[in-house]
């Protein structure tokens, strides 16, 4: 009977494996650059691709909830309102608040989902979607399938006990593997959550959620189910709603996430690794990550206590400000400029408060108060990281990794897999079990086992073939490792995959369960094709691929299974800019998908030297784009200037350019430069000297560029007007007493002076001289005769 059952089970497993393999093959053939989740940004304006389910919150049955069933959601009595809201067209008419009102909340694009809008009266609601993960869901930065989303809750704090409070809940399940990948439960007044409190409301800005458990746990071809739920308080009086946006593999913007230990003890030092990236499509400036102390309730559950800062390790070039060692506060690291697709990591060590609670449900050290900001991009909060605080436990951190060094294999080829198990401490382990729960598309051969720093396999190397159910037991001192290798023959037909898990022995707790499972999955075909890449241009940069394997110098190649695709992502180096693709990839879209390959292919990534146009603008108007821009040397930037009513734009700075109307085009740039825009009313200033008047005098605003200003110029008698033509003069025409300026396109002056009318000082002509002499002679003759008569 048992044998029959085993046979049936084996047959069923084989069938399922074959169906699964065909499914993966179909996905490999059909997958495009489209991510698996449909309408994850809700830009369709509705819930296309999603299932909306309404519930009633009767109170949480198991607190804190770690799975949906713990929420104890019941069929609804009063229907909640779950809707898609828009920044462009406003909220729907059915909105319980502000119907038809434009909102500013969408994280990206024009739409967001609003779940359980103002949902009180025990109302709860959720959206759910099952989606197959495809190649486009893999982030080339780490080669993992990612499911990201942004959430922004608005919850009323009813002052209830935690299990009665309004909340939001997110869960991601791997349907294919039957595992739960992620959940987060955030209730009103929960410590460690970046709640902003205003009156009775608690809300946050957009929080990022990033689910990426790694190969073997979430692979291309797996079907993932994502569910987001919001609920009012179980006492009925208070609402809980959550906005959701951008559910998919990437954010078109900034992103920060953190990982930390899953278990710690009071007074332990815990290290969080923060990963930040810029996927905004442009270079961003002044990028910063700021992290507040994680928080936990105290042992008496009467207050929230902060973790204290211990140390920070930042990459070269970054500068960090910190609180004093041993004090709570904020750590802020400045990474300067980040080009598109640039990412990095850094580490902060926090000290768990000595008085932290070690009893469930208050023993969670919560860290959600960290964010990333940059000039030219929206600030985003990182996802909540939770660490369970316990006492009296023996903790250590075991890690496992596996790789065969390639991402594609030919049927019948031989591979060598290397499995490394390490113990990061602080406790040694005797008899840690390494198991191999998944093997498909491979025939496992012989094993070897070797150790460093005292690590070893109990009983030596395992026997040939897949590890038995109980696995192999390992002894690993702190700082030691064990390396196992096995040869394998690839059988495919479409994929070859194996997963390993490491478990601590009884009495020891692993303080970071996120690194206890690892897998390696290759695409498989009868033949492989080479995808070659060449980098060209005066600039420089890197190109990485999905599937992983391409990260090279000037040229390199990636083997791709027949019919498979590859996605290439280019990242420019500092001082360079990516300008586009040619060959097997075309255009400027980054990343680029190489279509299904049936032969060898070659792609070219072009990089140019770059220059940055640093833009600043003053009050009185706006500038688009609103930030500085990096362009290829010889390129230009065109800014659209929108002055406030009555204002006129002007430009200055080391970037020369042309201002035509409200458009400013920077001349081709050869080096970094700057441009400053200012906005001021367009005006003409008139002045008048003595001996005359000018009307109107002083500053006259000009309603619109191109208008003229008319002056009445009245000289005193004997004087005439003189109007200056240099020194910022408007220029114009004087006809009679009316002076009309030329069309005014920039503020200018009309300067009038008045001068006396001059009397001509002429030289007597010859006839005038003759008349003068004749008059003198006649006068002399008259005097002569007059004296003679007098004698």
């Amino acid at each position, binding site marked *: 009977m048992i044998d029959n059952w085993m046979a049936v089970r084996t047959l069923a497993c084989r069938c399922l494996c074959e169906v699964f393999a065909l499914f993966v093959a179909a996905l490999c053939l059909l997958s495009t650059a489209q991510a698996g989740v449909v309408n994850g940004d809700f830009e369709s304006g509705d819930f296309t691709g999603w299932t909306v389910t309404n519930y009633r919150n009767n109170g949480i049955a198991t607190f804190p909830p770690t799975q949906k069933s713990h929420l104890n959601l019941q069929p609804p009595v009063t229907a909640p309102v779950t809707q898609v809201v828009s920044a462009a067209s406003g909220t729907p008419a059915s909105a319980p608040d*502000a*119907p038809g009102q434009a909102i500013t909340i969408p994280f990206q694009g024009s739409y967001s989902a609003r779940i359980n809008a103002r949902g*009180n009266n025990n109302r709860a609601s959720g959206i759910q979607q099952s989606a197959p993960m495809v190649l486009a869901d893999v982030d080339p930065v780490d080669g993992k399938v990612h499911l990201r989303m942004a959430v922004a809750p608005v919850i009323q704090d009813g002052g209830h006990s935690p299990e009665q409070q309004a909340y939001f809940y997110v869960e991601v399940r791997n349907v294919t593997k039957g595992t739960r990948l992620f959940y987060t439960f955030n209730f009103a007044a929960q410590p460690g959550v970046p709640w902003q409190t205003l009156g009775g409301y608690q809300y946050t800005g957009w929080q990022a959620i990033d689910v990426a458990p790694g190969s073997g746990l979430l692979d291309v071809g797996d079907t993932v189910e994502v569910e987001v739920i919001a609920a009012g308080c179980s006492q009925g009086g208070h609402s809980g709603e959550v906005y959701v946006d951008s559910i998919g593999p990437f954010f078109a913007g900034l992103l920060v996430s953190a990982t930390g230990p899953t278990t710690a003890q009071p007074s332990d030092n815990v290290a969080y690794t923060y990963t930040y990236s810029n996927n905004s499509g442009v270079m961003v400036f002044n990028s910063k990550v700021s992290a507040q102390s994680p928080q936990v309730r105290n042992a008496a559950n009467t207050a929230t206590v902060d973790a204290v800062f211990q140390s920070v390790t930042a990459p070269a070039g970054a500068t960090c400000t910190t609180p004093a060692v041993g004090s709570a506060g904020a750590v802020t690291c400045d990474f300067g400029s980040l080009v598109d697709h640039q990412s990095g990591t850094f580490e902060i060590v926090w000290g768990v408060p000595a008085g932290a609670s070690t009893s469930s449900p208050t023993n969670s050290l919560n860290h959600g108060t960290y964010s990333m900001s940059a000039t030219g991009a929206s600030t985003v909060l990182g996802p909540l990281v939770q660490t369970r605080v316990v006492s009296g436990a023996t903790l250590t951190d075991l890690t496992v990794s596996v790789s065969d060094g390639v991402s594609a294999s030919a049927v019948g080829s031989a591979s060598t897999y290397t499995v490394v198990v390490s113990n990061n401490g602080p406790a040694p382990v005797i008899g840690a079990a390494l198991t191999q729960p998944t093997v498909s598309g491979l025939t496992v051969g012989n094993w070897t086992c070797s150790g460093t720093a005292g690590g070893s396999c109990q009983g030596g190397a395992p026997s040939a073939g897949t590890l038995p159910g109980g696995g192999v037991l390992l002894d690993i001192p702190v700082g030691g490792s064990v390396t196992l290798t096995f040869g394998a023959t690839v059988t495919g037909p479409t994929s070859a995959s194996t997963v390993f898990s490491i478990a601590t022995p009884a009495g020891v707790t692993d303080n970071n369960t996120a690194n206890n499972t690892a897998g390696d999955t290759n695409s498989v075909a009868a033949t492989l094709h080479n995808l070659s890449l060449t980098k060209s241009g005066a600039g420089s940069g890197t190109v990485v691929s999905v599937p992983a394997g391409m990260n090279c110098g000037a040229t390199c190649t990636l083997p791709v299974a027949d019919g498979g695709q590859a996605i290439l992502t280019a990242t420019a180096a500092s001082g360079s800019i990516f300008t586009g693709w040619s060959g097997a990839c075309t255009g400027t879209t980054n990343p680029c998908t190489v279509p299904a390959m049936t032969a060898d292919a070659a792609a070219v990534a072009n990089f140019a030297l770059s220059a940055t146009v640093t833009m600043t603008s003053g009050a009185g108007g706006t500038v688009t784009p609103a930030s500085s821009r990096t362009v290829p040397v010889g390129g230009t930037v065109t800014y659209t200037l929108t002055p406030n009513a009555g204002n006129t734009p002007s430009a200055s700075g080391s970037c020369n350019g042309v201002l035509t109307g409200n458009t400013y085009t920077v001349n081709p740039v050869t080096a970094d430069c700057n441009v400053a825009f200012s906005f001021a009313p367009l005006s003409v200033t008139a002045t008048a000297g003595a001996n005359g008047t000018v009307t109107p005098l002083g500053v006259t605003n000009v309603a619109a560029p191109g208008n003229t200003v008319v002056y009445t110029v009245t000289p005193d008698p004997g004087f005439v007007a003189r109007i200056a033509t240099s020194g910022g003069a408007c220029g114009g025409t004087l006809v009679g007493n009316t002076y009309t300026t030329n069309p005014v396109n920039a503020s200018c002056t009309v300067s009038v002076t008045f001068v006396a009318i001059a009397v001509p000082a002429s030289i007597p002509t010859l006839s005038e001289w003759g008349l003068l002499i004749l008059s003198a002679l006649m006068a002399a003759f008259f005097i002569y005769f007059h004296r003679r008569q007098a004698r």
Partner: protein
Amino acid sequence: MRQIAHVARWSCLAGLGVWMGVVAIQSANAQQMPARKPGLWEVTVRSTGNSVANEQKVLQCTDRQAEPIMLLAIVPGQEHCHNVRVKKNARGSEVRTVCYVHDNRVDATVQLSGDLQTAYRGVFEVTYSKPVRFVPGRTEFEGRWLGECGAAQRPGDMVLPNGATVNVVEDRKRAESHGHAGHSH
């Protein structure tokens, strides 16, 4: 027996007098409650005791009916208020409220100054009878009148800094409609 009836009659009259007095005082207090000019107000709130929330800016659409709730919408714990006292002083008006969130008594003191027509400023402090996770501490605020409410805005609408809109008046009604089911005091 007659004496008992006499005492009872006088007790009733005395009780009626006290009740009328309380009603009169409450009526007088209600009339003295400061009210802002109807329209759209921008209110900036600065908390000095909470490192997470340094400054928040909200928009409030108010009218005569909504104003008694809207004016104090930035103050936490203003549910089930049983005692609201308003007193004029040299700086303006002082509002004291005694409210209950669940079974937690919340005493709030709000000092207001300004004409409430174009601009005002103030400060509030809140104390709780039982520990809570977020104590805002001394919080300063200032408001300025922006103009009429938007075409689609309703009195009671408050736009939070994250862009979401809530209607404070309706939320208050919803919360208080569950007074006996959700709040034991």
